[in-house]
Structures are given as C-alpha cells and as structure tokens.
C-alpha cells in the first residue's frame, strides 16, 4: 500500500497543513531538529524516572517497559470534537440502556433486533446479574470508545470498552510531559484541559454511591497488584483521586458491608472502582480459585451495599460479536440513527460470512471475539502466506470465535523521527464518565500510534506508542 492512500491529519497537500495543525506546523518548521531530538530524549527520561511503565504478559514478572512517546501532538479541532462527542454520548447511553435491558426484560431480544443466542451462548453474559439494578442505574461508569478516522469526515468506532478501559494515565502524563517540554506551544494554542480527569472521575464515582450512603462516599480503587500490566495506572489514579488503592486481601465483608483493613480497623467502602475482571471478583460467586477478589463481595453488591464500577457483566455490551449489532442497539434505545459509524463486520459463526472471510483472508482483519490487546489477531494485508494459512486452520476449527472486518485505511499523523516528520497510523480512545448526574467526556483521549512504518497495529503490547491528543478551543 502506498502512503498516498491514507488520509493524513496534518498535511492537506504538498506543503501546507490542515487547519487544526496550522499553528503547530509553523512552530515545528522553525524549530531546530537537534533541539527537538534532545527534547524527545528528555521526555523519555521523564517517563522512565516517573516509572510510567507497563508489564508485558508472558515475560519475566519484573520486566517493566516504557511505551514510546512521540512529541508531535495529535490535533482535533473543536468542531470535529463536537461531532465526535455527540456520537460518543449517544453510544454510551445506548450501551447502558442495552445492559439494563439484557439483565431485565430483554425487550431487544423479544423484538428480534439481537438474536437470543448472541446472549445466551455468550461467555460475557453474567446470569448472576439478572434482575440486579446497580445503584443509580449506571452500568458503565467508565467507558473508552476506540475510534479510527479514514477521511476528513469519516470516523468509525473500532470497538467499545465497557469493562475496565485502561490508558487514561497516558492521556494525562502525555499532557504533563508536553506542558513541561514545550510550554511555548500551549501559550500559542488554546488546548482544552484534560488534567482534571481524576477529580471528575472521583466526583462521578461518588455520585454513583448506593442510595443509603450518608456523608461523603468512601471510594477505593481495587487493583490486582503490582505485577498487573496496568498497575502504574491504578496507583496513578488512586493517588490523583485521593482514594485508597486496595488489593483483594485488604478487603473483607463485615456485617454486610464491604470494608478495607486500615491501621485503625475496618472501614466501609461505598464505591469500589475495580480494575479486576468479573470472574476474579468474588471466589464465592465466580471463579473459586481467584485470590484477587473478595469472598462475598457480590452478595453485598446485590443487596445494594456497595457500588462496583463498572458493574459486573458489562462485557456483554463490548463483546466483538455484539459489536456488529451496535447500529441496531443505538437505534432501538435512542430512536435515532447512530451518529458514529460501525466498521462492517462479518460474524464467522454465520456460514456464508465464514466462506467470504476464508476466501478473502489476505484483505481482512480477523479478531478473536473475546480477545484484546492485539493478541490473536490477523491483519491480512500485513501477513505472510504462511501466517494466513495457519490462521485459516484456527478459523475453520472455531469459526464462532472470530469476526472479520475490512482493513481500514487508518489516518496518519506524523511522528518525529531521526529523518524528520514521517506519517504513522493512529487511533483514538476518548474516555467517558457516566453517573446519574450525567455524562462527562474528557476533551482529548489516548492517541495510539504504530511506530513502525506502514503498520496498522497500534497496541502497546505490539510495539505501539502514544501521542498527546489536543482538542482545540475554537
């Protein structure tokens, strides 16, 4: 594929920048590349010292790696953002309504808009949640919507993250780093603020406290522990929200309440922002071998004694098989057409679709229905004949485990390389907070960038990097 095929967010033509990048373009062309290189190194040093690292699964436990950071910001105009946020808000409302419906009356199944077997046979469906209404009716307190752009006016939702979306600490640290490296840029441009995210998160979570809560709700963040790949983010958020960072063994159910062991005895928790997956949450109700959770926490939850964010069972809404029904889901619950487009998706469980996918593997992206992090996926155009042949076997063996999508022409944004600016593919994950008081979308998000030339895979576990994301106040 040649570079000209892709929409570049900075370059409009030969030598001039698109409008949102105009001021930045003027600035960077005046800058001495040697100074920028020094700044790039300085930025990496800041990340290393701050310990903004992630652990790579399957490697030595203690290994911590840095995610590459690129100093060229990804810039979105205020007008573009307005449209995006309307679409995001609509989608999050629909997801939440869908979850309430699926775990109560299941109207959408009765109406035949989503096939019953998509739910009943789905591992992400949590039967224990049937008839349970979370405090304030909120299922998805924190959502990350992965977006890609293919042209001036086309954005697609690549996937929804309604379980425990991660990456927000990078959004915040990337901004801090840019403010520190290039204060003069922020003096020139009106970039909307993202740094109040932790406070908004704290507020949003507190608004979701159980109805019987008296006084200021006690919020805590549950982490699987220091070996978890996102531990840095967990401690970062707890620290910036001013709440306790707890592990399963700090918690216990006492007199029907969820409590944490403090130096002064057990203290009740009203809202638990848990970064532990559903199945590990409660060994009495889910996986009995889990040591990460708290025995009996789900019973407290069901009786309305604690808020869990996000609610258990939200995985049914961001499942890759359900994804293909999202346009219907949005329409069913909001009565409007979806503002954000879905990527056309082939469900390999369907024999006709499977045949088409098998015939066109070298053109398609195939993903595991329950996979994440870029593991276990095939990017047809970027794969060798041998890789495709091997994947074909896996696909035939368990077709229902896969979906396929056309390879999207992801937009590019330049990164700063030794040879100067060079285009690389990007995606965008904005973060959305939901409480009974409303929906808050942080103007910005996490831009992930494939650091390798031509690569379409932006996942950090596959060598992707990040950029600061600017939404302009225009």
């Amino acid at each position, binding site marked *: 594929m040649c570079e000209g095929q892709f929409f570049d967010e900075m370059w409009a033509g030969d030598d001039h920048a698109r409008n949102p990048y105009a001021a930045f373009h003027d600035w960077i062309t005046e800058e001495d590349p040697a100074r920028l290189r020094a700044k790039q190194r300085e930025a990496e040093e800041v990340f290393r010292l701050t310990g903004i690292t992630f652990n790579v699964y399957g490697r030595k436990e203690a290994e911590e790696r840095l995610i590459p950071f690129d100093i060229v910001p990804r810039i979105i105009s205020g007008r573009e953002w307005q449209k995006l946020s309307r679409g995001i808000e609509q989608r999050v409302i629909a997801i939440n309504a869908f979850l309430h419906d699926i775990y109560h009356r299941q109207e959408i199944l009765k109406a035949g808009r989503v096939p019953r077997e998509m739910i009943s046979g789905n591992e992400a469906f949590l039967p224990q949640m049937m008839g349970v209404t979370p405090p304030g009716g909120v299922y998805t307190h924190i959502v990350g919507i992965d977006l890609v752009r293919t042209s001036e006016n086309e954005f697609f939702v690549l996937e929804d993250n309604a379980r425990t979306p991660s990456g927000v600490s990078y959004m915040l640290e990337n901004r801090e780093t840019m403010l520190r490296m290039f204060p003069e840029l922020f003096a020139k441009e009106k970039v909307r603020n993202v740094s109040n995210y932790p406070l908004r998160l704290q507020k949003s979570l507190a608004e979701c406290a159980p109805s019987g809560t008296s006084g200021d709700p006690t919020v805590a963040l549950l982490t699987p522990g220091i070996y978890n790949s996102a531990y840095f983010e967990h401690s970062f958020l707890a620290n910036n929200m001013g709440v*306790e960072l*707890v592990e399963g063994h700090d918690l216990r159910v006492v007199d029907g309440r969820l409590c944490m*062991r403090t130096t002064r005895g057990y203290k009740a928790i009203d809202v638990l922002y848990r970064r532990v997956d559903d199945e590990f949450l409660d060994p009495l109700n889910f996986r009995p071998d889990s040591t990460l959770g708290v025995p009996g926490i789900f019973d407290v939850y069901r009786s309305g004694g604690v808020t869990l964010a996000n609610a258990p069972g939200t995985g049914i809404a961001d499942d890759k098989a359900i994804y293909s029904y999202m346009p219907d889901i949005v329409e069913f619950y909001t009565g409007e057409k979806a503002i954000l487009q879905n990527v056309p998706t082939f469900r390999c469980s369907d024999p006709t679709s499977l045949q088409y996918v098998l015939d066109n593997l070298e053109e398609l992206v195939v993903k595991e229905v329950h996979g994440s992090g870029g593991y276990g996926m095939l990017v047809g155009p970027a794969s060798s004949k041998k890789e495709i042949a091997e994947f074909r076997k896996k696909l035939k063996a368990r077709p229902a485990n896969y979906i396929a999508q056309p390879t999207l022409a992801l937009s590019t944004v330049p990164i700063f390389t030794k040879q100067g600016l060079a285009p690389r593919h990007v995606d965008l994950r904005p973060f959305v907070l939901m409480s009974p008081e409303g929906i808050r979308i942080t103007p910005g998000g996490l831009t992930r960038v494939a650091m390798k030339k031509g690569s379409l895979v932006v996942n950090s576990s596959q060598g992707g990097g990040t950029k600061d994301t600017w939404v302009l106040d225009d």
Partner: protein
Amino acid sequence: MLGKTANGLYWMFRYLERAENNARLIETGQRIALTRSGAPTDEWTPVMQTTGTDLSFAEKYEAVTKESAIDWMLRDPDNPSSVRSAIEAARQNARMVRTALTAEVWGAMNGCYIDVKEALKRRVNERDLPGVLGLIRQRTALVRGATHGTMLRNDAYDFARIGTFLERADNTARILDTKYYVLLPTSAPVGSQLDNIQWETILRSVSGAAGFRTAYGQRVTPTGIVHFLILDKRMPRSLNFCCSKIRDNLGYLSSAYDHRPYVQTMADDLCRRFMSHDVEAIFDYGLHEYIQDVVAALHDLGQQIEKDYRFFS
C-alpha cells in the same frame, strides 16, 4: 490508612536503611583491609556476621575472599540483605505504597533504584568500589531528603520513621555484638586504649569516628565507645537515640489515632532501659547479654507493631 500501606512504608524505609548500612559496612571492611599492616586476616567474616548472612554465604562459597565477600554483600541476589536486594525490595514496597508517597519521594526512590541497578549490573572491581558505594549513599540520602522535605507529618511519615529507626537500631546493636569481645574489660588491661584497628572498625561502621572525637576527645576506651553507641542521645545511630525516635513516632500515632496500643508500652519499657542504666551497669550485666536483650526487644516491638496496626490481618 490501609494496614498494607503502613506495612509497605515501614519496609520501604527499613530496606533503604539496610542498603545504606550495608554500603557503610563494605566501605569499612575495605578500608581496614587496605590500611592494616602485617599478616592478612579475615576482615570479612565478622562483617557478614553483622548482617546475619555469614552462614548463607558459607553455603554458596568455599572460602572467604575479599572479592566474593564484597560481591555477596553488594549485589548477590541470593543474599536478601545485599545492597541490590535491599534497594529492589525498598523500591518494590515503594511501588506498593506509591499513593502514600509524594511525587518527589517516589521519583528519588525510583531514580535510586535505576542508577544503583545500573551500577551493580556487573561485578564491581576494586578501583570502582569507592565510586559505587558513594553513589549508593548519595541516592539513598536523596530519598531520605525528599522524605523530610515533602512528606506530610502524618501516620505515613510515622511508619516510615519507625521502619528507619528499627532497622538502624538493629544494625548498631549487631555491629556492637559482633565486636563486643574487644570491648570487654578483660580483653585489655583496664583503662588501656583499644587497638586502633578495632575501634576504627566500629566507629567507621556507624559513621561515628569524627563524632566520637568531638564528643569524647582523642582517647578511645571501651567505656567511651559503649556509652557513645548505646546511651548517647546525641549520636543519631545510638540505640538510645533510635529507640526514643521509635517511641516518639509511636506516640504521634497514638495521639493521631486517639488510641494507645500495647506496642507503646513496649517502647516505653525499651527506652527506660537506656535512662536507668549507666555504662558500668551494662558491663556488670554483661555487654553481650545486654545487646542480645535489646535485639530481642526490637524484634518483639516490630512484631507488635504489625499486630497493633493491622499490617497483615
């Protein structure tokens, strides 16, 4: 504060203190070996005895050499008290309690870990040893400085301080215990001066040589050293100083929590020892026995803190 966080802070600072103490012991051992005349003797076994790792060293190595002993104390992963192991453990605890640390303390701790790890990647040869030991002391001092300068004086600070002083008291007690025989009145004519090498080893191990001279003059006697390291409250590494700091910090916790746990009584008892005893009484009781009592009391105190402040359950 979570019990786990109190535990993490306490151990972070214990390990940090341990790393620094071990660096100082290596420095002393190295210096004595370089400056002593006459037949070479084994300087290193007592040093390893002080850190309580001489037996596990013997399991790994057949003979004590300068190189193997230094490597063992500095960077051996099999030695949980080696400088590298201690810095790693301090940083691991710091990661666990990061929400209770200021950004400066965390940054200093992480920087200490990164730089010391790099410096200890390979065996350190004699030529580079002073520089590496200097780096360790400097980086641990930065963490302590950031702690003093930026942490709130609340329960987090108290647990950090209690960990520091328990470890330091334990270290001083062990140094005294390893060398107690040279301090006994029977080992030299009463009133005579100590062998230069011996007193230098002891005082350098606690960075106290110059301090001793300032406070006691040029004449180094066993009574002087024992007074200096056990009873003297001016000396920041003496048992009396460390224990009274522990008692103070426990006291701050008691008043902040409006609850006086049993460990406070234990700390009071421990401190009373140093007020009511003079050097003669210590020698009468038996120096070795006295130090053993203090080591045991410190150990019990540590266990009681874990219980009273719910570190684990």
